[in-house]
């Protein structure tokens, strides 16, 4: 068995060595920049010294994990992560479906295409640009405060108040992602069998009931797939955007696990401690995807793998 296995490998190598040679550099990339960092997580269990070994100096066991489990800041950023993740899921998952259904009812193809093209424009912007626009719109002399002043209210320094951060974060997230999110749903909508609508119509279903009983079940596999993917990114809430938008005044609601580990690790240099937090976050994220996938497979028969 192993003898023949080895000889077919040898034959494959002789025949396809040029193909294998093309894979060398990409594989080197994956090993160095994807798999080595995974192993590099052992520094969460070891004492890392700057300039020292990639994998740390000596074992510390679970010291860093114990450290953050008793760290009050950790629990506050943990809560913030959950709240922001939940809010993002609550708004950024269903709204593309709604927009896709609305677009689907537009008769004029030109209009439909125009609305679509405009709505996914923000997806192509740098997160820095989005943050900059948010700051300009919400500044004291910005649009929102102009409106407030016009209705006789006091201007609000939105970005300096912790109470506003979640609203700002989620609405800018919706602004940037909703149009792009509709693409897959619109594609899925085109595959719904037209005969089903006809049958529903003959049974006397109104348009609303057709949407409820034909359209939505028709795109359910797409919805489930995207839901699982969304849950997978639950813990990794908009790290870059938060980093750009938050400031010490809004830390109480804006600081999430990833921004905290950025400050602890990169700004303050406690790399082992930050790695432990990062590993914890990644494990929760992975657990979430795996369980969402398993639940979805059992409940509706759709899964990522």
């Amino acid at each position, binding site marked *: 068995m192993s003898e023949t296995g080895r000889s077919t490998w040898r034959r*494959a190598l002789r025949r*396809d060595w040029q193909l*294998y040679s*093309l*894979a060398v*550099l*990409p594989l080197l*990339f*994956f090993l160095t*920049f*994807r*798999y*080595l*960092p*995974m192993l*590099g*997580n052992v520094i969460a269990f070891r004492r*890392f010294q700057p300039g020292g070994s990639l994998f740390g100096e000596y074992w510390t066991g679970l010291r860093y994990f114990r450290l953050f489990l008793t760290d009050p800041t950790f629990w506050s950023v943990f809560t913030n992560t959950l709240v922001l993740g939940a809010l993002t899921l609550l708004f950024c998952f269903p709204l593309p479906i709604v927009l896709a259904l609305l677009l689907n009812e*537009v*008769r004029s*193809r030109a209009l439909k295409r125009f609305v679509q093209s405009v*709505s*996914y*424009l923000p997806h*192509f*912007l*740098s*997160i*820095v*640009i989005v*943050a900059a*626009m948010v*700051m*300009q719109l919400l500044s*004291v*002399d910005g*649009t929102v405060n102009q409106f407030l*002043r016009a209705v006789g209210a006091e201007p609000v320094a939105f*970005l*300096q108040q912790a109470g506003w951060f979640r609203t700002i974060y989620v609405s800018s997230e919706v*602004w940037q992602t909703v149009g*792009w999110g509709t*693409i897959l749903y619109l594609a899925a909508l*085109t*595959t719904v069998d*037209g005969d089903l609508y*006809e049958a529903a*119509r003959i049974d006397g279903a*109104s*348009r609303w009931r057709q949407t409820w009983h034909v359209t939505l079940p028709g795109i359910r596999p797409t919805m489930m797939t995207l839901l699982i993917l969304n849950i997978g990114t639950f813990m990794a809430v908009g790290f*870059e955007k938060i980093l750009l938008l938050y400031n010490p005044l809004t830390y109480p609601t804006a600081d999430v696990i990833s921004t905290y580990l950025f400050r602890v*690790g*990169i700004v303050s240099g406690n*790399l082992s401690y*930050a*790695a432990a937090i*990062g*590993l914890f*976050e*990644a494990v929760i994220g992975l657990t979430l995807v795996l369980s969402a996938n398993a639940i979805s497979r059992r409940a509706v028969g759709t899964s990522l793998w």
Partner: protein
Amino acid sequence: MSVDARARGRASRPRGPRPTRGYRIFQAVNAVVLTGVVVVTVYPFLTIVARSLSDNAAIVAGRVNLVPRGFNLTAYRVVTSDPAFWVSYRNTVVYTVVATLVSVVLTTCYAYVLSKRHLRGRTALVGVAVLTMFFTGGLIPNYVLVTSLGLKNTVWAIALPNAINVFNLLVMKAFFESLPVELEEAAAVDGLDTYGTLLRIVLPLSKAMVATMVLFYAVSFWNSWFAAFLYMDRQDLLPVTVYLRNLLAGATDATQTGGGLGSANDVVQSAATIQSVTIVLTVLPILAVYPFIQRYFVSGIMLGAVKG
């Protein structure tokens, strides 16, 4: 992807002999809602452009909305006469070109290998890539790695760690798989080896796909800021996104420390015009290519979704 064809089929789907009154009301409401979506999406762009062209005093007074007040190009002159801005702009161009080149070459090579169904070990090679979509090393180990490889303050800190995007890889692999096998067999019969087939037969047939990949990568590298923010210590190495980020961060500090002081407020306000101009100039290349790229992106994301 014949999405358009399918969309047309869908449009002609019978959905009732005549619209009811309720449905006509819905159509009207729908039109209003969708117009609202367009307005909300476009408004921030227009107001930034208006601010960039306005007089400082008008902005401070909160009078600038969609129309520039006290039209002038002073802020544009200030920004474009700042050498640091042009240095960062040039850096962005250089980083984008280098990183895109590396990415497209590596992605093409690996996608081509993965598209060969007969290849022994192909499943494992696909698995190596796909697994990284679900589990990654995380920020800190990556930072330690890039730092200890001595990539800090070089373009490679931006180009190498993100050289292959697995999603793009799968899109390209699907495309190569759709090419007729006979062509490459004929090339082999005519004596071309694998490299020759790739360079002289496959790539010329894949111009549209390669162009799409160039756009995918170029847009993402043009927009990226975090890698440079982490790994570039020197002012003269920053890309324009980080230049803009530093402008923003500076303004925030000024608002915090200046609190109410007239002079500090002036700094903030002039910063607002400068920021608007920088936003406009940074986003301009993206807006210029947007009409050409968005179609490719759309078919790309659907191809990727189909292949999973």
